[in-house]
């Protein structure tokens, strides 16, 4: 930063350890030495790691450090964040190659290690720590939303509702999408919706008042079969959704039951498909109006 009239200099000194973020004066007094971060700087065309040094503050999270660097050393450093409370899912990026919420990862956790901060890798990079996750929103739109013929408020059994709490916790950080090898390594973006959306479809499929079936979509356009149950997605989920056990496996079972059960297959050939939810005959191609 330039400072021609000295005011800025003094000011900067004054605020030297008060990050734009959470690092305040009183905390700075507790600053012990410095800490270093290596941050990816670049865009879709490429880039490189740049090392930054800043005052170490007890309890500081990686997002605080990044915002400190942004306020004092690299004003144009791109990072996405909103809540600083692990609730909005905006600040997901990779620390030492693993997807993390920057606002939930303490610098101290990495004591004795270098800290490398990079953007999510399964999606195109826009700049620095920000990648373009818009593919996820398109995928989301391709899922048949909640459909019902009843009027809310609904009366439902408590045990049915309880099953919906877990998938509903999702904060759309897309870290499960980032870590899943089907997207990260094999780039099956167009044919594979990814763990986040299996979670969403599980919620929809298990909702007692939803009348649609998404099993055919899961098997065909959303590529549920590509998942080979490695559980990497469940491991990184910041809200502890057991994505593989409680979303993916039940959906796989339903799809298998619907499409690979020979007795059912024969019945479908003869009489058309029955809705797995309502039992109503909905046509051979899963089309409600027959077909």
């Amino acid at each position, binding site marked *: *930063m*330039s*400072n*021609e009239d000295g005011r*800025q200099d003094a*000011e*900067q000194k004054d*605020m030297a350890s*008060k990050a*734009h973020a959470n690092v305040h004066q009183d905390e700075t007094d507790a600053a012990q030495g410095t800490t270093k971060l290596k941050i990816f700087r670049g*865009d879709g065309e490429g880039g490189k790691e740049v090392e930054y040094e800043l005052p170490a503050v007890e309890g500081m999270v990686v997002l605080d450090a990044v915002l400190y660097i*942004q*306020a*004092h050393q*690299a*004003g*144009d*450093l*791109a*990072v996405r964040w909103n809540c600083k409370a692990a609730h909005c899912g905006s600040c997901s990026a990779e620390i030492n190659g693993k997807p993390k919420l920057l606002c939930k990862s303490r610098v101290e956790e990495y004591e004795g290690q270098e800290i490398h901060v990079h953007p999510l890798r399964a999606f195109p990079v*826009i*700049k*620095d720590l*920000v990648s373009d996750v818009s593919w996820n929103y398109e995928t989301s739109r391709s899922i048949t939303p909640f459909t019902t013929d009843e009027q809310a408020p609904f009366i439902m059994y408590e045990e049915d509702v309880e099953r919906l709490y877990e998938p509903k916790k999702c904060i759309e950080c897309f870290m499960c999408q980032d870590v899943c090898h089907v997207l990260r390594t094999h780039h099956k973006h167009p044919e594979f919706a990814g763990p986040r959306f299996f979670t969403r479809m599980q919620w929809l499929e298990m909702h007692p008042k939803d009348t649609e079936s998404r099993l055919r979509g899961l098997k065909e356009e959303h590529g549920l079969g590509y998942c080979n149950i490695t559980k990497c997605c469940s491991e990184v989920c910041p809200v502890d959704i057991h994505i593989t056990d409680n979303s993916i496996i039940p959906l796989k079972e339903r799809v298998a039951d619907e499409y690979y059960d020979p007795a059912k297959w024969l019945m479908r050939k003869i009489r058309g498909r029955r809705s797995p939810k309502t039992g109503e005959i909905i046509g051979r191609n899963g089309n409600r109006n027959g077909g």
Partner: protein
Amino acid sequence: MRRGLHGANRLGGNSLTDLLVFGRRAGEGAAEYVKSNGYSTEIDSSQLETEKRRVLEPLERQDGENPYMLQQQVQEAMMEHANLMRNEESLQEGLEKILEVKERVPNVKAQGSTLFNPGWHASQDIRYLTQISEIILRTALERKERRGAQWRLDYDGPSDELGKINFIVKKDEQGEIDIERREISPMPEHLSRLFDEGEGHGGEEEGKESQF
């Protein structure tokens, strides 16, 4: 605003629901209005150029203020002086701090390009942050009463006279803040029926301190 749907309580959670409902309605209404009026969307190109230059200036300037530091000064001044509990002296002090930042805003400097550049965004935001802070402080000074979240330590309670008034903030000819006092139209009968007068309005005669 003196009170919205949630009375004089203007705390975050309530205003969020307000903005979701009324913000959406306002947006839809505005879009509808533009469509039905057939207003020309032609814009004087010299105005566009001026605006473009203003927006790009922070990137082109050689030297200048760090927008993040100005932002932080605004945040600190507002935390200290425009909190729930306030009085004339402290509000005035806050206003002076904000006006001092306001003077420095035209000289902000951002580094880098126009691509996803938070420093450049901050150098635009700071202009609006100081503006809205000035509005909050000036209207709080003007409202010489204790009402809801305006917990003026130098007044004992709400004033009946101010209870009938909304402040409407506009730009005057110099682009500065102009506060108009506008009488509130009486509450429609179907709504006022829902309120027990004592709870809904408060007022000196009831000796109530707030409408939480």
